[in-house]
């Protein structure tokens, strides 16, 4: 559910290819401690962008954290308790344990709530007091009011085209964030990303990017999202591991995006004419 990322052991910068001015805007938002909302389809690089920015920002600060980025992947059963913390049984005692959000608030990490609309409604209300001038997190079970660490920042992501209007952010939530829109990159940029991520030849990466572009034309048929950059990278990785290109594309792209046999066949046909 929650995942702590420690970059500083690896010392390598998570790769991210800026498409517009998102790096500058994020940096400016961070320096003013404005919460950030990332909007965009699945697998277009939102999470990678946050990792990349965290890596850059926390290298420049004095606050050397072990866990500078706390990621919570939200799902339908995620409640406020899961984020804030709960009482656990330890021997004969019940012991309070902080949840990922509380930990980030206390230590001054960046807390990234991925796919926030998936979570239950009570979680979105939780973040209200954290995202305005108050910057506090009330924990009603313990009666504590946690004042956020000066370096704490909340980043959330959501995917507007993904679900019906039933799952949309309330304006009162949405209007607390600086919102950055993401989309799949153009063919050339996507090819560069694929080539970098999986070490395939540029011409192979370019073919994969063209597949991405064309399959995304079919967005509304049987699968809510177009094929993501992530899937294209998977295909490329399989190829560089020695799997034949058509087979790699079949397992990574065709079967992954839809269960509908007709759609699968159509995507397979598209892949088939584009790959050499």
């Amino acid at each position, binding site marked *: 559910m929650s995942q702590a990322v420690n970059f500083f052991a690896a010392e390598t910068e998570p790769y991210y290819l800026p498409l517009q001015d998102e790096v500058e805007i994020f940096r400016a938002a961070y320096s003013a401690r404005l919460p950030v909302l990332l909007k965009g389809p699945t697998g277009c690089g939102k999470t990678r962008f946050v990792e990349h920015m965290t890596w850059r920002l926390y290298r420049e600060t004095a606050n050397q954290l072990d866990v500078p980025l706390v990621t919570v992947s939200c799902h339908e059963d995620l*409640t406020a308790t899961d984020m804030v913390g709960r009482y656990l049984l330890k021997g*004969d005692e*019940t012991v309070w344990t902080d949840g990922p959000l509380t930990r980030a608030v206390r230590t001054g990490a960046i807390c990234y709530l991925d796919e926030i609309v998936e979570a239950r409604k009570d979680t979105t209300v939780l973040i209200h007091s954290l995202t305005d001038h108050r910057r506090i997190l009330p924990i009603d079970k313990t009666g504590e009011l946690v004042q956020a660490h000066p370096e704490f920042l909340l980043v959330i992501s959501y995917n507007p085209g993904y679900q019906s209007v039933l799952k949309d952010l309330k304006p009162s939530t949405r209007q607390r964030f600086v919102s950055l829109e993401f989309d799949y990159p153009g063919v050339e940029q996507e090819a560069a990303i694929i080539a970098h991520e999986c070490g395939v030849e540029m011409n192979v990466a370019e073919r994969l990017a063209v597949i991405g572009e064309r399959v995304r034309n079919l967005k509304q048929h049987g699968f809510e999202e177009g094929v993501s950059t992530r899937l294209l990278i998977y295909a490329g990785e399989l190829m560089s591991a020695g799997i034949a290109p058509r087979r790699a594309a079949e397992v990574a792209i065709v079967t992954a995006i839809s269960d509908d046999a007709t759609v699968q066949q*159509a995507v397979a046909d598209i892949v088939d004419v584009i790959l050499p």
Partner: protein
Amino acid sequence: MASLALSEDTLALFTEGIAGRYFHIKATDEFSNNRNLAYDAAAAQGMDALYLPEHVDAPDQSCYRVLIMEQLGLRECDTFSFRMRKALETIPQLQARYIEPKGASVRTGDFFLLFGSFDQPSLAAELFNLLEQARVQGHLLRTYPGLHRHMTSYHQHLLESVGIDGGPLNRGHRHLWGERIPGVQWQDLTTSLDDLAHPGTTVYDSVAALCNHYDEVSGAYVISEQRPYAVQEESLPDWLNRDQRIEEWEEALDDLEQRAMAVEMLEAEDMQAQRGDTNDAAVREAEVDIKSIVDERDTLKRRIDMERSSVQHALGADRSGARSYRYDEWDYLQRRYLTHWCRVYEETLIGEDSDEVAPLTEAIRHFQPIVQKQLEQIRPTGLQRVSRVADGDELDLNAIIEARQDIRAGTSPSERFYSRKERMHRDVCAIFLVDLSASTDDPIEPPEPFDWSEYDENADENLRDPWFSGEADEFDDEPKRKIIDVQREAMVVMASSLDALGDAYGIYGFSGYGKDCVEVYVAKEPNEGFSHKTLLAIAAMQPKRSTRMGPAIRHATHKLMQSGHAMKVLMVISDGFPQDSDYGPERGNHDYGVQDTSMALKEAQQKGVESFCVTVDRSGQDYLRQMCPDSRYLVIEEIADLPDQLSKVYTALTGR
């Protein structure tokens, strides 16, 4: 033998993916219904459709992809953007041949002008097609390398099945299909074909090649009489070319309008500056300027309108906004399915008239409380607390105590000592299919015949012409409520109530005329929310044409199956029996339509869709009994009850 029916749906998706826009995939037979446009090539295209042969004598289905790519290639290579004026400027060989034909106007097609420059226009057209094929083929093989093997296999098949006649066109085609015979005739032509396949060539290179090779090629054929290029009204490429030209004109029009506006603004400024000034020469000059621009703009606007209507007339209504599907039909006389018999167009209804919404919101106010109350009976409300789970937001006290006891007793306790709230899910998807046939335009109750028995000639109000007076009375009446009005109201009431219930529901209207044009109008898709847009769309439901129920039901079933919900409900609301121009051998006999509809409902049932038919036709009992499974129909006597009855039926169907 490859057959279109086998892979039509896949091909439509394939085309959309490659082209980035939707094309209807149609069989060439459907195309031949359009008697204006005879076209004998294997595949063809219109504004919104690709026409492919129903069967191709080829080893496998991939030949269809080759045919589709060849058609899309023409678009990708800008064949239809050919402009005669530009060709004349850049190709001196063409200039030498061109004589402007009599009667040519700005609206004459560019291909018509081009081929008219040659003494055998149809031969020139064939040669041009060959040269363009070479160019498109080169482009396709570069851009879609995977197409190579399918193309090779299809071409191999063509080489085997098409005979050799020794003519240059035949030689050229065989060259494109991969036949290489060294030292044979027509080397120049085949070299040109190879050159055109190189990157960077344009349609004008093909035209230049046409001019270079035409004389030699035409010399090879003994032609007894001049065969004209298709008359202006018959050539498909010409129409597509003209369709594209409209877009260019529209750009020019935008440009002119902007200029006109700029001049008008300038003029207004000048007028203000010069108010009181007697020097009106400058003003006059500006007026002349603006007048010429406005004239030019109006001429162009008229021309665009005329051209658009001719193109529409020739190519048929543009349905690029719709999607289409083919469905089988049950022929009860032969006791078999007619495969891929009906074409259903699915269009989205977009309403714009906000005035129409007022009666609908009134209906919501009036009916919703009643309907909502009905529907609330089926709703398992709110959240439920589930205890003894491994993960939750609260500790479950009972479980904790038990766990403590276990620990004290020295046994290992259960770890499930949390409780959490869970929302109870209802996974229902319903589609309401509303009959929009012309008869829904009828008033609910026939007008009472006027009682003339107490007619008093001298009565005050009848001093004028009595006939006129009678009509004036009718005008004074409230406008008669029509069946469609009640249908619309029932839909909005259901929609707003179901929205509160949280079920997914779609609202479709259906009508059409003939088997090749069944129309399904989407007012709301199940995955959309209820909004003002939905109200507008429902208000835009209008009486249209016939009632071919079978294909509409099959389409709704198809959509329900795609929705992926656990419970699927289809409710058909009609005002009469199924009927259409070619729904059965005789027009007056409704058995065929009833049998087909009955079969469509059975198919839905087999697929797990719960169906229900509601009719407001009082004589509906007779045919509904034949059409629907037992207890799956309702005849509504009083049409005003429709919203109430619908909700009752819905509750009964889904509330189990």
